[in-house]
């Protein structure tokens, strides 16, 4: 009975999707995804991957995709602009807003996916939908079923983008369902910084179901800053899939502040030897928020390096979930992997579920993981108080420092400052 209800909810979310009207290259991908949505059911807490995150609040509401023209102007989003960034793509409720965007169309392409598709079909089709797999992920399948536009960053061989690319996804409508999509193709030896940011101009409930694919060719280097600042009523489901080739390096900083319920899946696959990834994650939540991060780092080949640090600051009756899976495949010798999950509980009703998980099939590897859950160290608070700070200032300073360690790695000064201020404001409120 439950199953039927779930499936009809998923089917309801499929309504309003684009149809095969243009004979474009994405028809097959979409058709496959639609079929998959029909087979999959909405995950429940009986699924191991979702056991701590109950989607019941989501299913109590209806969300419809918005297909009109974006109705906001520059001044509405001025406060989100990043001074260092020369290229920006803006999507409003999932719809590309050309009047707010500054694309680039030379050797390096920063453009809406639909606009770039005719010229770069081969490159796009080769990777789109092939990294963020949707066989067992109903939300990724749903996003793919809606796929007709998105943000594209295409870096040719040895291209270096010195200024960060800003991909801004703005939510403005109550009960809208947006399915944003990013595709970053970094050619061999290329270098770039991409900021993927989700913001809201409304306080209402809506659904963001975002998927991003980041494909790094040999020796490419990508810094990916993902900022989730949805409204406090929103539902945010995100999935980033990263594929790393020989000698490539992915540096991810993923910060989540908003949403009533957020779920972020990060899949990193090291497909060739010598790939490296460094990932910092931060979730700061309070009230009745729930932030769930599931990451998977797959060392499929030898000589891979991964370093991951995930931090949660949990106040109110909020709940943070972290599941960090690290796989070292057979033959992936000399892998060096370190993971830590650190969690700060600020209130009596806050809750953390963390599971750092190692699966190792090779013997000559170095893998370590650690997890801590606790409150601020009494000695540290005392130290600051002995220097004349009040109890509350001392606590908020320490909480801030706990989170700032992650944000500090953001290489874009104005964004870093802005997020650190948000962090400070949030810790003071707590």
């Amino acid at each position: 009975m439950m199953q039927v209800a779930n499936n009809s909810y998923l089917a309801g979310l499929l309504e309003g999707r684009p149809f095969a009207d243009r004979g474009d290259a994405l028809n097959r991908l979409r058709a496959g995804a639609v079929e998959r949505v029909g087979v999959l059911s909405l995950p429940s807490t009986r699924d191991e991957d979702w056991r701590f995150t109950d989607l019941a609040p989501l299913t109590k509401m209806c969300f419809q995709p918005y297909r009109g023209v974006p109705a906001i102007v520059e001044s509405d989003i001025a406060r989100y602009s990043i001074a260092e960034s020369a290229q920006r793509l803006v999507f409003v409720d999932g719809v590309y807003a050309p009047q707010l965007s500054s694309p680039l169309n030379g050797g390096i392409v920063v453009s809406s996916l639909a606009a770039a598709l005719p010229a770069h079909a081969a490159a796009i089709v080769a990777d789109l939908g092939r990294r963020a797999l949707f066989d067992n992920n109903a939300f990724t399948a749903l996003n793919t079923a809606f796929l007709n536009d998105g943000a594209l960053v295409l870096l040719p061989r040895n291209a270096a983008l010195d200024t960060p690319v800003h991909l801004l996804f703005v939510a403005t409508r109550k009960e809208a369902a947006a399915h944003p999509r990013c595709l970053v193709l970094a050619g061999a030896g290329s270098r770039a910084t991409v900021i993927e940011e989700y913001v809201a101009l409304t306080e209402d409930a809506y659904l963001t179901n975002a998927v991003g694919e980041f494909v790094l060719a040999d020796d490419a280097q990508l810094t990916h800053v993902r900022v989730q600042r949805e409204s406090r009523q929103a539902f945010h489901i995100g999935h980033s899939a990263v594929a790393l080739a020989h000698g490539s390096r992915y540096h991810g900083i993923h910060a989540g502040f908003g949403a009533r319920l957020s779920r972020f899946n990060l899949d990193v696959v090291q497909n060739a030897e010598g790939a490296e990834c460094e990932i910092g994650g931060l979730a700061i939540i309070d009230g009745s928020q729930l932030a769930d991060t599931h990451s998977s780092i797959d060392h499929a080949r030898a000589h891979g390096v991964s370093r991951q640090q995930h931090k949660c600051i949990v106040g109110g009756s909020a709940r943070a979930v972290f599941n960090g899976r690290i796989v070292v495949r057979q033959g992936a010798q000399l892998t060096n992997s370190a993971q830590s999950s650190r969690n700060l509980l600020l209130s009596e009703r806050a809750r953390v579920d963390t599971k750092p998980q190692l699966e190792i099939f090779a013997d000559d590897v170095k893998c370590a993981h650690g997890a801590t859950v606790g409150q601020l160290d009494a000695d540290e608070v005392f130290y600051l108080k002995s220097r004349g700070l009040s109890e509350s200032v001392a606590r908020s300073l320490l909480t801030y420092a706990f989170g700032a360690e992650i944000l500090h790695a953001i290489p874009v000064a104005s964004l870093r400052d802005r997020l650190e201020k948000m962090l400070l404001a949030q810790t003071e409120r707590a």
Partner: protein
Amino acid sequence: MSSILQNLVNKPYEHGFVTDIESDTAAKGLSEATIRMISAKKNEPAWLLEFRLKAYAHWLTMTPPAWANVHYPPVDFQAISYYSAPKPKKKLASMDEVDPELLKTFEKLGVPMNERAKLAGVAVDVIFDSVSVATTYKAKLAEVGIIFCSISEAVHEHPELIQKYLGSVVPVGDNFYAALNSAVFTDGSFCFIPKGVKCPMDLSTYFRINTESSGQFERTLIIAEDGASVSYLEGCTAPKFDSNQLHAAVVELVALDNADIKYSTVQNWYAGDENGVGGIYNFVTKRGLCKGVNSRISWTQVETGSAITWKYPSCVLRGENSVGEFYSVALTNHHQQADTGTKMIHIGKNTRSKIVSKGISAGVSSNSYRGLVRIAPTAAGARNYSQCDSMLIGDKCSANTFPYIDVRNPGAQVEHEASTSKIGEDQLFYFAQRGIGAEEAVSMIINGFCKDVFQQLPMEFAVEATKLLGVKLEGSVG
């Protein structure tokens, strides 16, 4: 790894699989009638039959757990005979009749002479009067008021205790195998330490004559009253032969105020041959309840046998300031699969728990640590420290860790650490420089790796366990 090491392991299990149970055996299959038959045969009171039937009703509604990281063909529960009255095994006349290979193993393990005879099934009175020893021990225990007997005996002699505590820690419907055990258990041990008594000796299954063949559905219940303390040893390092493939035991521990229970296990059941054929499925539910304030339960296990191990000795820390500990060494070789770990459920204030788990995998085996640390909202000031280390020997085995941490109280402090390592060429080289051969070096390194756990074992067990790991890894270090 080097070729010297390659040659060191992969020695076959030397003693084959002995089937020597001849007994009054029930027809295969499980139904309500089977359970009534077991209960009638054992002349049980009505409340116990009810307990069994309730468990059976639960079991019927359940499905075997599929979440563990182990793979095996489905067990046909109707193909098992659930009752077999143990008959004395055929006794050998003297040590000379014992399989020399078995004696060699005893030699390697350093099992004391008198115990070797008993373990080998030699009629003990010829060499060693175990009956008188056991009687002496029993008298000594009875003097201080300790009850230590088989659970069937306890059902008749001390029904009030059994009725009060049986199923109080592991409820009949707890999990699939616990429900099955509750429905069909035939025997096991019962131990009761009265108020204020410190058990004068380690209670060991060695010297228990009454439950020699406690069967595949063993049930153990240990109760330590206020201020009592006991150390209980289960199993032994010598290889154990058994014809039953499925073992589903349940162990329940209850510690009241200020009580202290230490439970040590060394398990070396038949693990199947090097191609993974045969071997015992060891699906065990072990749980201790720290019911009273300042109580303490400590689990120590050395798991080296069984084709499949599915075992999570747990502590429910209900009493304020109670302490739970778990020390484990799990070694898998060839095609063995182990999914083992612990659960620490913190309910009372200022409860503390410590987990030290060492996994060693060799051959093509799979070794998983799966643990849960849960801090309930009531457990202010709770503290947990977990350490899970894995060592891989060879590149075809796997080591996994699945630590679940669920914290609902901000005053709690939870730490988890895990690492994976291997025996390095440079370490072996260092030993070689000092004239120590590869085999001995590996044994020393492994024992160093497991030191934290072995220190928790009673001394003679620790000595044997150290050697046991060496024996188990013979020929597999590569």
